[in-house]
């Protein structure tokens, strides 16, 4: 499925005011997906990801050598290199991978369930609601543990998304622009409430620290909750076919004996949980949930069982790459990954928009 559906284009070609970006798509209008077999794409992106992982493990401020670590491994004795690897490098890399996977998969699920290419978890109020919950619980119970804060953030994220689903119920699913627009407004309202509370309680700085995606503080013992998002992704893969069917439309789901309501809520709940966990442990990273699913579904289509692994791999690679950039350009200082992804993501998003869909 191209980024822009046929219907969207038709709608706008009727209006003389909007210049068409490209006409090429009209000339050969045949679906060109899955030209490359998925296994090839997946193994290629696995190789890329492997290289990025190696790079991510090697880059860091502290002195580290692979040979020293290997020696430690061979002699079964802990040395400075292997402990650095276990305390700092490996946790950071794992956290990055899990975050990338979670954000990309959550983006894909929400896009399929809402049947809309323009949404991502932060555009339907999930991450903003999570931040609001986090702020409220920190203000009311400052001494509560990370687990409690996380649970509250998850609950508020689910509530926020339920509210959003209620809002868009009356909008026809064919109205492609209205859903993201309502989502942006809805997210903006929640964010405004959060900011207002933070402003009144002088916690704006605390809020910004949470919200800004950054892996610099990840160490062993400080990121492990992210493993739960990995578990959620596995569940998502298991119910991938049901999600795909729900994405095809109400009648098809009904005919195939799938409870649309149940599966939709399951998907929405999982997206809310993933967003909340990532926001609590790492912060928000813009654009991943939007860009990665779009790129993958251009190449591989919307069949989730086929495309989810690719989405996960590409999401992980993208965040790895951006974090490596953030760590290198101002070495030994860091640029938060959210900043890097904001820049890179904007460029990629514009490229996706301006490129003619059929060339994918």
């Amino acid at each position, binding site marked *: 499925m191209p980024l822009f559906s046929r219907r969207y284009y038709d709608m706008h070609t009727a209006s003389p005011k909007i210049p068409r970006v490209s006409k090429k798509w009209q000339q050969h209008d045949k679906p060109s997906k899955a030209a490359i077999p998925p296994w090839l794409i997946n193994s290629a992106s696995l190789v890329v990801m492997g290289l990025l992982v190696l790079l991510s493990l090697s880059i860091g*401020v502290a*002195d580290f050598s692979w040979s020293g670590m290997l020696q430690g491994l061979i002699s079964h004795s802990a040395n400075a290199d292997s*402990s650095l690897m276990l305390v700092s490098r490996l946790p950071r890399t794992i956290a990055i991978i899990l975050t990338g996977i979670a954000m990309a998969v959550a983006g894909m699920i929400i896009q399929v369930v809402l049947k809309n290419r323009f949404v991502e978890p932060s555009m339907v109020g999930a991450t903003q609601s999570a931040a609001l919950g986090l702020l409220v619980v920190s203000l009311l119970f*400052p001494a509560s543990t990370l687990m409690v804060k996380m649970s509250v953030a998850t609950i508020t994220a689910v509530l926020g998304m339920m509210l959003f689903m209620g809002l868009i119920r009356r909008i026809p699913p064919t109205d492609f622009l209205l859903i993201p627009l309502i989502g942006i407004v809805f997210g903006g309202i929640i964010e405004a409430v959060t900011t207002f509370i933070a402003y009144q309680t*002088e916690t704006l700085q*605390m809020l910004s620290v949470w919200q800004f995606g950054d892996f610099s503080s990840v160490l*062993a013992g400080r990121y492990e909750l992210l493993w739960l998002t990995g578990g959620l992704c596995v569940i998502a893969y298991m119910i991938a076919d049901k999600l795909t069917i729900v994405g095809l439309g109400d009648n098809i789901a009904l005919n195939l004996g799938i409870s649309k309501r149940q599966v939709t809520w399951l998907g929405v709940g999982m997206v809310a949980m993933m967003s909340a966990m990532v926001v609590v442990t790492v912060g928000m990273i813009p654009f991943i949930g939007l860009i990665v699913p779009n790129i993958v579904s251009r190449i591989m289509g919307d069949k989730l069982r086929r495309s989810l692994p690719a989405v996960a791999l590409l999401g992980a690679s993208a965040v790895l790459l951006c974090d490596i950039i953030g*760590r290198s350009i101002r070495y*030994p200082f860091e640029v938060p990954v959210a900043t890097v992804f904001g820049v890179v993501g904007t460029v990629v998003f514009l490229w996706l928009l301006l490129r003619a869909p059929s060339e994918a």
Partner: protein
Amino acid sequence: MSNPTITTQSPLFKRPLLAAMSAALLVSISLTGCTSPDSSETDIDDTKVENKTADAASNVANNDAVSVATIDVDTVKGDVTLPMNPSPIVVYDMSLLQDLAALDVAVTGIPSGLKLDNLSSKNQPDPEEVGTVFEPDLEALNAIQPQAILVGSRMAEKYHELSTIAPTLDMTIDTANIYESSKQRLHDLGALFGKSDEALKLQQNIDNKIAQTQKVTQDKGAGLVVMVNGNKLSAYGDKSRYGFIHNVLGVPMADKQITDAAHGQPISFEYIQKMNPDWLFVVDRSAAIGEDSVGAKAVLNNPLVAQTSAWSKDQVVYLSPDSYLAFGGYYQWMKDLDTINTAFTKAQ
């Protein structure tokens, strides 16, 4: 600032009154040398009239008026000329508030929600709230009708807006040269409020304490200033608001590459391990803005920081929130120098 309406209508009728008032003003000012200024006790309307009529009064009463003496104050926006001893005044900066509190000058308007002690002088009436350090409350300002507004870095953006209300002095302290700059500010404030002697005494206190502290900080190894904000870290260099540790107290920088940034350079724990400072100066940002959160100590307590000589020798100095919010203020100098002095003495 001057208001012409008073003199135009019926000067003959007004003049005896003006003369009486200016006489009262002169008496009150001559008394301020030894006691606290009683201008704060006269109500706002009185002070306003005094100031408005100061010019007229000087023509009538033939003694040339201590009351109209003006003074040039050196500010970030150039010299500003204004009458001495302006009152009421509004102050939007915590460093300046500390200095004024130490000088025992009455401040009528301060920002709300300030988390520090030592911001208002003991012998003065409680100040009113006029917005926050970032955003003035224009209604409240209008009610006070200040004769001078003193601002620092946080309010500097609103300078033009404020200067339409009253003469505004941007007395931001230059972080790159915090010592000289804060000395200048203290001196200027002393001169402006006729308390030069007291200002000199306060400066002497600071200088003594610096000399004392320098003795113990010499040759004790390099230091790194780290701010902990939530669970994230940033490093500060010698041009930051913590630069005084390096360029006044002479503690060498563990990393000479650090450039200045408003909230420091974001760093990782590996960075601290690599730089391996002998002294770690820690600012807990959350504590500075009055939050209950994970303490800086809990954030730093990890295997990487534990490898530094600062941590292993227990040479971690936790700076007070003042050093973040009121850098260059009188009480900040005294407090931080004490903290550093104690820590370094203990390590000997």
